């Protein structure tokens, strides 16, 4: 227990160090970006109206003050940490004065709902198919599905999404291609709304599944085909243990361990959003928010999303590290 406590302290320290380094790096890169939120706002305000040059100067300095962008980078860095510790990323610069946090919180349920579901489907299906394909190497159906997955794997997400959009939005227009739910529908636990959510989520989720399944499939198949030559599997076969038991308890169970780490990491990454898919299907999630933030030079928002993402990945890695001994009896902490 003493060893465990020591380990926990060390691991905790590392956890915070990772977050500190990651967020600092993100702050640095974001602040080096030449996209200036003040200029973006000024050009938004002046690009369509007849604005005389003297006013623009005035507008610029007023905005700098309003956005709190005065002071050195170090000042901003320190005040940034101060706010982060309070769970506040300050006001968004492109949606001033709405707090970044409320923008993220508005987008997060969409992203988490869509991505978590898609990830779980992808992970389960990819691992199941991959494990079966690795174990029953001569099965024709599995070979075919393997070939299909392999062929799909290198196709870019954007293309898969676009093809789905075209197929189910135009050629056979049965699914909505844009947005998160039907327009003017009251959100709530009503059949109508949930059905609408599912319908709107189908194409983006399908895109994510088709895009993501390949790497799980391939890594699982490779893990399994290594494990089937392990002594304990060969021995179980010689021992006449029935093959479904060998598959589930001797092969898949061992192969799943590294995949769980991958799952945890991917779950952590959910907070970063699925940029291309959200962008393509107009899904109101974090990925779309992030891209808008980048385009508009809203580095409060970009930093907010990035920080959330860093923290969630670090937490996921941390949790899986702590849970690992429960999943894999060989690993002991300390």
């Amino acid at each position, binding site marked *: 227990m003493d060893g465990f406590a020591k380990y926990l302290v060390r691991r905790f320290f590392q956890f915070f160090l990772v977050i500190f380094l990651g967020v600092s790096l993100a702050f640095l890169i974001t602040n080096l970006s030449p996209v200036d939120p003040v200029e973006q706002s000024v050009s938004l305000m002046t690009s369509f109206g007849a604005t005389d040059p003297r006013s623009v100067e005035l507008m610029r300095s007023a905005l700098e003050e309003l956005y709190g962008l005065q002071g050195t980078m170090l000042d901003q860095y320190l005040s940034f940490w101060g706010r982060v510790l309070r769970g506040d990323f300050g006001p968004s610069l492109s949606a001033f004065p709405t707090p970044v946090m409320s923008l993220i919180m508005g987008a997060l349920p969409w992203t988490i709902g869509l991505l978590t579901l898609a990830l779980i489907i992808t992970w389960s299906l990819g691992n199941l198919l991959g494990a079966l394909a690795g174990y029953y190497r001569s099965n024709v159906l599995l070979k075919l599905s393997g070939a299909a997955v392999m062929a799909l794997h290198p196709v870019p997400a954007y293309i898969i999404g676009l093809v789905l959009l075209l197929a189910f939005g135009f050629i056979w227009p049965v699914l909505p291609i844009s947005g998160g739910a039907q327009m003017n529908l009251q959100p709530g636990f009503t059949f109508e709304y949930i059905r609408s959510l599912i319908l709107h989520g189908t194409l983006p989720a399908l895109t994510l599944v088709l895009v993501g399944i390949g790497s799980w499939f391939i890594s699982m198949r490779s893990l399994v085909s290594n494990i089937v030559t*392990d*002594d*304990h599997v*060969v*021995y*179980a*076969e*010689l*021992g*006449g*243990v029935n093959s479904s*038991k060998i598959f589930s*308890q*001797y092969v898949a*169970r*061992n192969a799943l*361990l590294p995949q769980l780490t991958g799952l945890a990491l991917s779950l952590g990454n959910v907070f970063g959003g699925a940029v291309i898919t959200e962008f393509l299907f107009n899904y109101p999630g974090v990925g779309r928010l992030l891209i808008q933030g980048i385009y508009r030079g809203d580095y409060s928002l970009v930093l907010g999303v990035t920080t959330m993402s860093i923290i969630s990945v670090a937490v996921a890695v941390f949790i899986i590290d702590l849970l690992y001994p429960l999943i*894999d*009896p*060989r690993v002991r902490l300390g």
Partner: protein
Amino acid sequence: MLAAVENKSASVEAKPVLRVEGLKAYYQMNYFGVRREVRAVDDVSLTIKRNEIYGIAGESSSGKSSLIKTIAGAITPPLRVVEGSVKFDFGGKELDVYAQRPAMKAARWKHLSYVMQGSMNVLNPVRKVKHAFHDFAFKHMGLSEGEFRARVESHLQRIGLDPRVLESYPHQLSGGMRQRLTIGLATVCEPEFIIADEPTTALDVLVQQDVLALIKGVQQRMGSSIIFVTHDMTVHAAIADRIGIVYAGRLVEEGPTLDVFQRPQHPYTAHLIASLPRIGDTRKRVALGGKPPNLADPPSGCRFHPRCPLAVDKCKSENPALLPRNSGRVACWRAGEVEAA
């Protein structure tokens, strides 16, 4: 057919439990340029009697491991049986390993168990030991869960293991304990036949002695037969009733252990025995020249001839058959001459 079996059951004691006839098992590879066949098991015939420990000896890559895997029906392509048969006789029922696969599968562990090479790693690392017993043996025993557990525990105690190991994970046990456990697993169903492939190789000498005693003890209690493979002649001396010497995929000599050790008939056997350390023996060991042959391209005639101190021209061209001589069998044109050497 069934009637014939019934008829023979009277003479069950006399019947061998394992009969290997003209067995040829080759690695047939078209991979990586090694397109030739590797004749890992080349025309081997042997029988093993009830209640007998049969040792198979030979250098590494002599094909002894392939032979025992082929006997166990544990081969996967590219190793294939080309000719011959492996037949067990369990309680009077003849079982052809390669012709009756489903029956063979059902017989595993009930009648035939296996102690594998590197058997320290044969237990599933992520499951507790008790699951292994359950998976392997439960269905053969016809017991309730509780009875089964009690049986396993008493069995473990008998072989000197604390039943609490059942609740452990394999990595929590020492190498010796794991080995014992494997033997326990292999013997829990009290099978008629046990195949043991280098079960003691990775153990240190003290544990090795311990394990050998255990195997022997279990065998004697159950009256099982064991086919036992190791390159270590001292192990054979300690445990085997009969031994067979394998060289380059062929059985070159076979006989009662004592006879083979005292009067080896094949020059290769003689070499193996001569190279054993003996107390008080100060003679210099003479190393055998050359390397074990490449099984993909074996020498003509007697495969041992390039290394044989007694080789004559005939050895290079004609392959000697394994023929009875004295108390055993030997395959050598100059069989017996080695005794004088």
